């Protein structure tokens, strides 16, 4: 875990420094220069922060779904614990992705929020997380709470591909990679708009944020288990 912890800190610090400090030039000559992406310019730096957090949101949701599914199969409360922790972290990353996206939209499109298909889909994801936690708080019995929320997470997860992959590409939008985007469709890092060094930094950011997720996950799992043990001890003393 120390490797994950220091790895995530080192990688994210590196991305923050390099992503902000490396200059943009029209025709990059060396490794320490980024090309100018038309329509994005300086705002392209958001790729290193916004896209990895959005990616981690989806990953956390998937992990939560998988643990929910495993809980339903085995009825092992440990899986439920992991499912909730992952959902909580996913909610946090989802807020980060929404905020970075809205800030970027303010400078690229002129307003923080304008219901672009991508903004709609991240809004739905926030709603799903909110609904998931309100369902959990509504059920008192632990076993019932675990299985009902697991089922809800999976049912909600079934709709996620629709609004993450189908709707944004079906409807015209302004988000880079959407159907009507001037760069001609397809996510940025598939269409060759990103230079090699940008791509490397992007993947470093992706790994960094994923490590951060793994570290926080392990941390919260440890806290939850310690709390359980303490509750058990108190119970015995009473």
């Amino acid at each position, binding site marked *: 875990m120390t490797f994950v912890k220091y790895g995530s800190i080192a990688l994210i610090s590196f991305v923050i420094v390099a992503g902000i400090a490396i200059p943009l030039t029209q025709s990059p000559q060396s490794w320490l220069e980024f090309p100018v992406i038309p329509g994005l310019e300086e705002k392209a730096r958001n790729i290193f922060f916004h896209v990895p957090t959005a990616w981690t949101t989806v990953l956390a949701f998937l992990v939560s779904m998988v643990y929910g599914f495993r809980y*339903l199969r085995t009825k092992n409360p440990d899986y439920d614990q992991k499912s909730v922790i992952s959902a909580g972290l996913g909610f946090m990353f989802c807020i980060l992705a929404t905020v970075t996206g809205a800030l970027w939209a303010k400078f690229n499109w002129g307003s923080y929020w304008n219901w672009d298909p991508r903004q709609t889909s991240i809004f739905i994801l926030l*709603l*799903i997380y909110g609904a998931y936690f309100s*369902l959990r708080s509504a059920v008192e019995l632990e076993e019932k709470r675990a*299985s*009902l929320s*697991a089922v809800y997470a999976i049912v909600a997860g079934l709709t996620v591909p629709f*609004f993450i992959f189908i709707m944004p590409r079906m409807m015209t939008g302004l988000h880079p990679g959407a159907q009507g985007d001037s760069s001609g469709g397809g996510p940025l890092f598939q269409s060759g708009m990103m230079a090699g060094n940008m791509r490397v930094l992007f993947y470093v950011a992706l790994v960094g944020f994923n490590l951060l997720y793994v570290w926080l996950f392990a941390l919260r799992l440890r806290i939850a288990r310690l709390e359980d043990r303490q509750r058990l001890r108190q119970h015995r003393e009473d």
Partner: protein
Amino acid sequence: MIKQIMAVFSKDVRSELRTRYALNALLMFVVTTVAIILFALRGEHAGPTVLAGMFWVAVFFTAMSGLSRSFVSEEERGTTMTLQLIASPTTVYFGKLLFNVMLTILLVAGVTIVYLAVFPAFEINDMSIFLLTVFLGSLGLASAATIIAAIIAKAGSRGTLYPVLSFPILIVPLMTVMNATVKSLEGTPFSDAMVDFVVLISYVMVMTAGSVLLFDYVWKD
């Protein structure tokens, strides 16, 4: 199997016809919602986009008030155990789904009639698109609403959580259906609406298949 599904379905229809609780509530809800929309518009002439949106707003909130009955009523009357004993989860699920589909179609038909009577601008220019949209939309709405109703019936607080849990899941069919309804009002060629239908059909299939597989875990205590 099909006989058993029909048995669950006809049991629900019969008990519904005895009290007409859900039907009356749905009808009153439609009237109330449309009245509120009329008050809000204050004689302003709304275009097809607004009317199509309002149409499904009325359908959504009415459905949210009535569709949870299918499972909640079993819990309230204490008949869940009996149903668990005499029928397999899959047959119960499909019976309830069928009942909810029927309710939703009735509800959409009611909203359509009220809209046609009240809004002169609500003119259906392409009947085939409209009918297919309404049918697939009802299927999509009912397929998601049924599994959420099953979850809600087992959770403590029944009424308030239902729209909260359903809305994020129903956004995809709602947005698609609103799109397609605008097309039917404007009378665009049928091929233009194909995308929406494909999305709706795949949504219904994914939702139903997932619900059948997961229903076991909700239904059994």
